[in-house]
Each structure stands twice: as structure tokens, then as C-alpha cells.
């Protein structure tokens, strides 16, 4: 086209980014790659092929990791872990810094390879993915440098298996590797089968940067290779980012193995626009929310919740904006969207959109010519969607937004939270009080006010509910690659000896003590167990002390329902929660002698030990009363004009299976941190010694504890734990007891991906200072990062 012609029509023309260097890199490798294990590449075996999404042409041959190769990688990582962890923090910081600088020096090559391999626009790889990846290594070089002072009571986990998705191949690699390496772990990483190239390029760069052999190992392959990694006994932790479906499988597979787990899964994130928002700004926010990376973003703002009064105007503006979007070659510098990663994804998007239309949604797609080859899908809007529609509930993982209207802030929160997911939310309003109120109320790990899809290494990212658990980035993310030193070397809890009841002796002709019936404690009331069966409580010698209710699934259901209703506790002031805990301690103290003799009677411990347990319980209540208003969030300083508030929020309704030992102290140690942070608890007390818990009802009743905050169901821990684990309205489960209990708690919690905290049958010294404090409070809270850009 001539200059004159351009002068007349003022079109953009083509602005292709050169792919010469990237193609040359591929050619140097003969388009074939092996794994990166123990510091060198294995011989390529051409076991599967990848394709270029934008053209559909073959791109590279990759190796499918076998059991032997995964084993070799884990062995290499294991061998390297100890010397890597023994390096000084400063030495590890130097390595991470070198990786960051290496990324910066080769930024354009990485960006172009990524765009070719994934199909995403060069703008995004060049301006977002690669710089952020470098930022992650720089930030975490800092945590390595500060590890000894910032985390003196924590040790690295060991060898970490990491499985990353295809939507941000290089950035996810950085998110995963940087914190793991910084804190002294070594890694076996499996990139997604569609998009492994930048991981292999990174391995090459890391090798050149002098990273010791075995510190990172990259094994390519598909799902079965991932499964080999997940199942490998030499792995201490799995960190997975991907679909909720696969996350659930991983949760089940590693249940009971003692492996740590963090999951960053799917989402159906709300994008809420109030009538006092900058509507054009919010329209542009939608572009960044759902037409970023072709909508293949776990935290994509895919549910547009629009206040009814502005919905029509907003949709009109949005459609006009859509007509200006450009879709084309990922290497064209004048596009907004590139290619969908693979034909199978394209089919899925098409099918879901068709289903949405069939259910009554109105389809709007920008009028544009899509490239004829390759995987392309236009920006798409479905209006008139109802919450019951499949497209309002399912993650589409494509450039498709749906709109739903609301009337009031309350209703916007209700709609936002009416989802199995809880990853992120975007809130648009010029009123700070409205925006922050809604930010506080939405169930999400990340909230953006008047913004969307902002990320930074200093700000934890991750979700709740079926979006997974764990955080990546910042101090909160660092803990995911550490374990408390106090947890090292814990002994297995001896199996509980069966205690058989002695046959009752014939009583004398005297007036007996008045019979006391210990019921369950649900919604602030003593309730008869649903099944109306009882279980005996015996002395160590088998004499009957009393009988307690045999709780069952329905009792758990009732207790969970009571706990859910006690939502107000989450909003009670920290001062108020502290008051209640102090009051409980006060009332327990008044009955200390009685509680001590009960412990003696049940456990056979001497008076001194029993007194010590009561005293420790009172002190622990004081500790958590103290913590209630002191386990505060923080203010992160990401590189923007604004702040990110890392708020500590309660998880919600938490089931607690108390250990058999320490009948009072165990109960207090597990429930007090949860209650202090605003959670509501359904506790199953020590199975052999439940009377400390049932005696405790009276303390609770006189301590201003609102009904439903702490519910106690006595009975057999195993079935009760199973009832809690499979209950979809329970947000987390803490299980202390046998190894089998931990296994089933973790496995069954996969149902709704509730967070778990288990001891794998290992004994906790409940009297030790490490049995309370910040490590426990971390398990009792979710970190919600609220990004608040500001400026006039």
C-alpha cells in the first residue's frame, strides 16, 4: 500500500516484531528438546510435537517425561537441596539476582519465543510477562538475602514439584521457581505440554548463569508425566497452577503422604461496576480483564456485575470498545488479542458460548476479520445472562464476558460470592467507602479497586474456595516454601490402646451423685445427639466415668449450619473477640480445680500435670486474646501509585478434630486461634477424653460467646471428620490424630477444595511455645490483597 493510500484511509498496516532470533534459537536446537536434569539436557526423543497456535504449524518436538526421568530429576534435586540450602542467604541471593539479570539481558528473545509458542501478543510477553518474571527473581533474591533474619524459625521444605499451566508459561515459571529457590528448596518443574519452550530456554540461561546442577530440573511432558511427579515419594511439596479439576485430583492423590500442597486454580471472577464509576475507565478495565491473554487468565474478570441504572449505557460503551479491538498475529505490534492456545480450547469456548446462547443469553461479537489459519476467537459479550446459566458459573477460559445486573451494594456482593470460586474481584466506584466495603465483603484472594489484573512479586496472589489455597508472592507467599523448625522431628503418635470397660461393680446402698448427661453443644445450646446413642468415657483402667453423645453426620450438619449463621463473629471487632477470649479464660480459671481433676480422672495423670494443662490452657486463651487485635495484615508497596492492603480475614467455618491427648489444652490450642481470627468452629473433642470439652460448655455459656461460634460434637473422630471433610459449606478442616485421619481429611476435603491442616499422626508438644502463635494464626486466616491505586 502506498503512502498516499495510507494517508487517505489512515489504517495501521502491519508492524511485525522480528522473529529471526527466536527461529534461529529453535533451529540451533533442531526444533527438538530433551529434559533439563542435573544441569544438562537429555537427548531429545521426539515423543510429542507442539504447534504454533497462530498458524497451526508444527513448532517443536519435546520429550515426554518417563518414570525414570522424573526419578532422575527428583534425585538430582534431592542431591542439590542440602548444599543449596546450606549456602548463605546472600549466596542464594546472588544466584537469583543473576537469574533476574539474565532474564533482562535476553528479554526480547524470551518474549518472542513465548508469543510464538503460546499465541499471546508480543505486547503482553514483552511489556508484562517477562519484566514481571525478572521482578519476581529480583524480589525473591531479597527474601534469600533476608531469610535468616526474616524467617529464623523456619526451614525450607526440601524438594518441590511444580506443575505450571500454558497461559503464562514463563511468568508462572518465575512465580514458582523464585520463592522456592530463594528459601533453599530445589525444584523439579513440569511446564505445560503446549508451552514448554520458554522453560527450556530459561534452563539454558540458568545454566549459563552458573546455577548449580540439580537446583532446577525441567521435565517436559503431558498429564501422565505430571502424575509421576505428583506421586513421586521424593517430593516434599507440590505447587500446582491449573484447572480446578486437576487440582482436585492432585489433592486426592497426595492425601496422607505428608507432602505440602498449594493450588492456584480456576475462577469466575466478578467485575463489579457501580453507578458512580468512571464508566469509560471501567470499560477499559474489562478489556484488561477478559481480553487480556485471550481471556485465558485464571483471575479474568469474566462476570460483569453492572448496577442496573448504568447497565445499558455501560454495555453500549463496551460494545463500541469491542469494535475497536484488533485480533491478529501475536507478533503484530498493533493487536489487542492473539491466538487461543490450542484447537481443543477453541472448541471448548465455542461450545460454552453456544450453550449460553441456547440458555437465552444475547451474543455480541466484535465485527472483525479473524486470521483464517490458526486458533482465533473474537472478543465476545453475552448479555442478559442469569445466574443459573452455565456461562455465569463455569470458567470459559476464553475472551468471553457475561453481564448480570444488580441493584444494591449488598446484592452485588451476594452475586459476586455466589460462586464455587473465590480468586479475584474487580470493583469500580469513585466512592472509597463503597469500594472498600465491597472489597472487604467479596470472597477472593485478590481484589482490585478501579483496576484489574495487576500483579507484583511483593503482593501475594492466590484464591480461596475452589480457586485453591496458598499464596504466591510477598511474605505470605514465602511461607508456602517453608516449614516451622518446631515441626521437624516430631514423633508418630502411638496407636491409641483400646480401653475396654470393666463390668460395672454392684453399687452400695448410698445416694449416688446426680447423673449428668453431657450432650452436644450446638448454636449455644446443649443439644441431644441426633442418633440418640451414647458412648462411654472411661478411666485408663476402664471404669466408666460418664457417657457422652455419639454425634453423627446430622449433628455435624446442624453444627455447621449454626456456625454458618454466626457470620457476625467475622465482623465483630478484634477487641470484642479478645474480650470474649479473656472472659472464657477468666471463667475457666474460676473452675480450674474442677477441670484439673476431670483431666486426672480421664487420663490418669497426676494432679500436677493436670493443673499444668489447665494453667497452660488459660494462658493460651490469653495469648490468642492478645493476638486477636495484633495479628494484623500489612501494606505492600508494589510499583504503582497506590497501595496493596494485605488483610487477614477469617477462613469461615472450620472443622477441628482434636487430638486424643491433652483433652483441654488440645481443644483450646486448636480452637482459640480460629476463634480469635473470626472463624466459626465445629470441634470434635478428644475421643477418649471428651469430658473436658463437655464441661467447657458451661464456661462458654457464661462468657458472652455468641451462639454458633464454637460448636462441639462428641463422638468417633473418623466418621465425624469425614462428615466435615465432605461438607461443602465447611471452608477448612484441621485434623489432629491418626495418620489415617489425616489421609482421609485431606483426600475428602478435595470435594470443595477446603484448606486442611493436619498432623499426619505426629505428636505436637502442646505445652511448647511453638504450639501457639503466628504459624497457627496463618492457618486460621486468609490473606486478601486489596489493590488500591490512587491519584488525581
Amino acid at each position, binding site marked *: 500500500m502506498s*503512502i498516499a493510500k495510507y494517508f487517505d484511509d489512515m489504517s495501521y498496516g502491519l508492524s511485525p516484531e522480528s522473529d529471526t532470533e527466536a527461529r534461529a534459537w529453535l533451529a540451533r536446537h533442531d526444533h527438538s528438546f530433551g529434559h533439563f536434569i542435573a544441569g544438562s539436557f537429555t537427548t531429545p526423543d521426539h515423543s510429542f510435537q507442539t504447534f504454533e497456535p497462530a498458524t497451526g504449524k508444527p513448532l517443536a518436538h519435546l520429550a515426554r517425561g518417563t518414570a525414570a526421568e522424573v526419578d532422575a530429576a527428583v534425585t538430582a534435586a534431592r542431591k542439590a537441596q542440602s548444599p543449596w540450602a546450606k549456602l548463605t542467604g546472600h549466596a542464594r541471593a546472588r544466584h537469583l539476582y543473576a537469574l533476574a539479570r539474565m532474564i533482562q539481558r535476553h528479554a526480547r528473545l524470551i518474549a518472542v519465543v513465548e508469543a510464538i509458542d503460546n499465541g499471546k501478543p508480543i505486547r503482553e510477553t514483552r*511489556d508484562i510477562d517477562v519484566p514481571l518474571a525478572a521482578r519476581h527473581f529480583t524480589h525473591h533474591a531479597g527474601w534469600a538475602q533476608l531469610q535468616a533474619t526474616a524467617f529464623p524459625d523456619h526451614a525450607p521444605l526440601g524438594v518441590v514439584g511444580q506443575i505450571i499451566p500454558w497461559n503464562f508459561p514463563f511468568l508462572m515459571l518465575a512465580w514458582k521457581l523464585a520463592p522456592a529457590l530463594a528459601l533453599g528448596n530445589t525444584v523439579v518443574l513440569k511446564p505445560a505440554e503446549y508451552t514448554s519452550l520458554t522453560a527450556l530456554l530459561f534452563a539454558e540461561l540458568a545454566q549459563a548463569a552458573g546455577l548449580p546442577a540439580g537446583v532446577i530440573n525441567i521435565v517436559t511432558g503431558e498429564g501422565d508425566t505430571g502424575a509421576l511427579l505428583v506421586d513421586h515419594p521424593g517430593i516434599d511439596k507440590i505447587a500446582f497452577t491449573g484447572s480446578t479439576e486437576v487440582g482436585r485430583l492432585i489433592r486426592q492423590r497426595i492425601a496422607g503422604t505428608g507432602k505440602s500442597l498449594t493450588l492456584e486454580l480456576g475462577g469466575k471472577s466478578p467485575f463489579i461496576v457501580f*453507578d458512580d464509576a468512571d464508566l*469509560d475507565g471501567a470499560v477499559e478495565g474489562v478489556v484488561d480483564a477478559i481480553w487480556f491473554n485471550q481471556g485465558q487468565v485464571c483471575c479474568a474478570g469474566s462476570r460483569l456485575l453492572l448496577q442496573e441504572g*448504568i447497565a*445499558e449505557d455501560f454495555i453500549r460503551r463496551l460494545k463500541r470498545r469491542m469494535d475497536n479491538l484488533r485480533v491478529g498475529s501475536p507478533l503484530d505490534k*498493533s493487536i489487542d488479542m492473539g491466538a487461543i492456545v490450542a484447537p481443543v480450547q477453541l472448541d471448548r469456548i465455542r461450545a460454552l458460548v453456544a450453550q449460553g446462547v441456547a440458555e437465552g443469553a444475547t451474543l455480541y461479537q466484535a465485527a472483525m476479520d479473524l486470521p483464517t489459519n490458526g486458533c482465533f476467537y473474537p472478543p465476545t459479550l453475552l448479555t442478559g445472562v442469569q445466574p443459573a446459566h452455565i456461562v455465569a458459573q463455569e470458567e470459559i477460559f476464553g475472551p468471553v464476558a457475561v453481564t448480570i445486573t444488580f441493584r444494591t451494594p449488598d446484592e452485588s456482593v451476594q452475586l459476586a460470592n455466589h460462586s464455587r470460586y473465590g480468586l479475584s474481584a474487580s470493583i469500580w466506584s469513585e466512592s472509597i467507602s463503597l469500594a472498600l466495603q465491597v472489597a472487604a465483603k467479596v470472597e477472593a484472594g485478590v481484589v482490585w479497586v478501579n483496576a484489574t489484573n495487576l500483579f507484583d512479586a511483593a503482593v501475594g496472589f492466590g484464591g480461596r474456595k475452589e480457586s485453591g489455597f496458598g499464596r504466591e508472592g510477598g511474605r505470605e507467599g514465602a511461607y508456602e516454601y517453608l516449614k516451622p523448625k518446631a515441626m521437624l522431628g516430631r514423633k508418630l503418635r502411638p496407636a491409641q490402646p483400646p480401653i475396654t470397660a470393666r463390668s460395672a461393680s454392684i453399687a452400695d446402698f448410698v445416694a449416688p451423685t446426680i447423673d449428668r448427661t453431657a450432650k452436644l453443644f450446638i448454636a449455644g445450646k446443649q443439644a441431644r445427639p441426633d442418633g440418640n446413642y451414647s458412648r462411654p468415657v472411661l478411666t485408663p483402667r476402664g471404669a466408666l466415668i460418664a457417657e457422652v453423645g455419639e454425634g453423627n453426620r446430622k449433628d455435624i450438619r446442624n453444627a455447621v449450619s449454626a456456625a454458618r449463621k454466626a457470620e457476625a463473629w467475622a465482623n465483630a471487632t478484634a477487641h470484642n473477640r479478645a474480650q470474649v477470649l479473656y472472659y472464657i479464660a477468666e471463667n475457666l480459671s474460676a473452675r480450674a480445680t474442677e477441670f484439673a481433676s476431670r483431666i486426672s480422672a480421664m487420663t490418669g495423670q497426676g494432679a500436677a500435670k493436670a493443673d499444668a494443662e489447665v494453667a497452660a490452657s488459660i494462658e493460651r486463651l490469653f495469648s490468642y486474646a492478645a493476638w486477636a487485635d495484633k495479628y494484623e495484615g500489612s501494606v505492600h508497596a508494589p510499583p504503582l501509585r497506590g497501595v496493596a492492603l494485605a488483610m487477614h480475614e477469617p477462613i469461615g467455618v472450620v472443622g477441628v478434630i482434636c487430638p486424643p491427648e491433652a483433652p483441654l489444652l488440645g481443644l483450646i490450642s486448636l480452637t482459640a486461634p480460629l476463634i480469635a481470627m473470626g472463624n466459626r468452629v465445629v470441634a470434635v473433642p478428644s475421643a477418649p477424653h471428651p469430658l473436658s470439652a463437655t464441661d467447657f460448655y458451661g464456661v462458654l455459656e457464661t462468657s458472652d460467646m455468641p451462639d454458633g461460634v464454637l460448636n462441639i460434637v462428641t463422638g468417633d473422630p473418623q466418621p465425624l471428620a469425614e462428615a466435615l471433610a465432605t461438607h461443602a459449606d465447611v471452608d477448612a478442616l484441621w485434623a489432629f490424630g491418626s495418620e489415617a485421619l489425616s489421609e482421609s481429611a485431606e483426600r475428602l476435603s478435595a470435594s470443595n477444595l477446603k484448606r486442611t491442616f493436619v498432623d499426619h499422626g505426629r505428636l505436637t508438644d502442646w505445652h511448647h511455645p511453638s504450639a501457639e502463635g503466628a504459624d497457627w494464626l496463618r492457618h486460621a486466616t486468609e490473606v486478601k490483597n486489596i489493590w488500591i491505586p490512587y*491519584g488525581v
Partner: protein
Amino acid sequence: MTILQPKTQAKVASVQQAVGHAARNAGMPLDLEWIAQTRVNQSATDRRVTSLPGRRSVKKDAQAAWLLKALTCIDLTTLSGDDTAGRVRRLCAKAAQPLTPALQEALGMADRRITTGAVCVYHRFVATAVEALAGTGIPVAAVSTGFPAGLAPHDVKLREIAASVADGAAEIDIVITREHVLTGNWQALYNEMRDFRAACGAAHVKAILATGELKTLRNVAQASLVCMMAGADFIKTSTGKEAVNATPAVTLTMIRTIRDYHDRTGYRVGYKPAGGIATTKDVLMQQFLMKEELGRPWLEPDLFRIGASSLLADIERQLETHLTGGYSAFNRHPIG
């Protein structure tokens, strides 16, 4: 950015039909509710302008064409205390023949009329410029109304406009009273602007907001709307004398109000960023914003002007570079 009620939207359609697209902005009654509902989020605005250069790019022939188009939108300006008639005549010569004929031919544009959009001077030099530009079809714009501070008595401002129109100015660049914006006195701003528009008669009026002194983008958006309601043909960022001039964020804010005004009234109001646009990179950014937010019609000089003096030289250099492949130097192009 602003709230458009469904009721009003119906009205828009009828107005658009009645007015058509080419009509000059006749203004509308001051709509205080619309002004009050205007919201601009600075950070969201910044993000849009920050990401745009990564989303749009023009290279090679397309870039040359875009720069030529920008050239035709330049209000070639001299507004210095030491201006003289001679200086103004030299500027006019440059406006009429901004490119050497050889360069223009090499670009394949020999048969096109390539001139700047206008020449912009103080009232004192209007007559000089009109005379120098006779026969070229290039309009003369006069800055007016106590430019740049705009604090002269109101009647003096009106007489200044009338005098420039009498001397042959086809365009009047007025400055608003910033105090009206800073104190939220929209009625006063509206009245002032309406008077200016009336005083201009057939001459087109550009309302200079002095955005660098209004400070907030909300102020900028509100002032833009009031000026359009009062009949401005163009809204313009700056006098060039403020510390901050035509930033991309200000452009985005102002042109979004132009779009809203067009949606509601059917009138197309022009936009003129002025000051701070010195390089081809700067001007391409402004053009991308215009095309993306307002559309193709707003890339032509009837709806887009650029207040600049040194930009032209950078465009000339860039065009020569495009032809030769080697970087150019200022001294190879006639001075303006």
C-alpha cells in the same frame, strides 16, 4: 465517564437525525446534572495511555502517511513576546510549503495539497498572517481573550475577539477563566464561553482550558463539557505557557467528553492538544488516541489540530529518514 440516562439517549437519536454530522456545534443548555455525574479515574486513565503504545504501532509507509496527516493538522504557532512581522511571514511561508517539493514528490504525494492546518499568532499579527497566507487556503488562528492568563475584563476580551475577526482571523483560540472551574462555577464558565462564541460569529472558536492549571482530570472533563455545551467548536488543552501541557491522559479525558457530547447531541467537536508535542512519537500517540477513542473522522484537520512549533521539524526529519534509510538532521530542512 459520564452517565447517560436512557431517557436522554432517545433524545440523542432524534437530535442526531435532525442535525446531521457536518453541522457546527450549536451548543445546548447548561446541563448541571451531567456535569455533576462526570467521573474520571486518574489511575485507570493512566493505564490506558500507558498500554496504548504497545497495542498500536505504525511502521514504514503507514508511519510516513500518519506523520504527513499530522503535519496537515498542525497549527503552526508563534506566540512569543519577541514576535515580529518578519518572523510571522517566515512562519507563514513554512506553513504553505512545509515540505520541500522534492521530499513531497519522493513520498508520492506531489499531487496533494500538503500544508499545515493553520497558522496561530497573537492578534497583533493576524493581519500580517492573513496577507502572507492569501491564496493558500490556510486559515489564521488568533489567540485571544487575554491569552494566556485570561484575566482581562470580559468586555475587553469580547472586543479582542471582534478585532481579530475583523482582521481576518478564521479561528479564535480563547482562554477560559480558570477560576470558574476551580470554584465549580459552571454557570459563569458557560456564560463566558457562550459570549465568546457569539463574539466569534462565523469564525470557529477553540476553547483553551489550560489543563495544567485545572489539575484534576475531573476538572478537565467537566470544563470540557461546559465549553461544548456553550458552543465551542474545538476544545484545546493548553496555552503552552502552563508547566504541564497536552499529556496523553489529558487528551484521553477530553476526547472521551467529545465522544459523550457527540453521543448526546450529534455534534462533532474538534480537539486540539497544544504544548508538549515535540516529537513524532508524541504525535503518533495523540493520533492513536484519536483514532481509537473517537474514530477516523477525528484524524482530519477539521476535527483535529495540534498546537506545536518544533514538531514540524521532527516530522520532516522522520520523513526523510523514511526515504533514505539514514537518519536526517534539522539543518537539511527549511526553517519555519
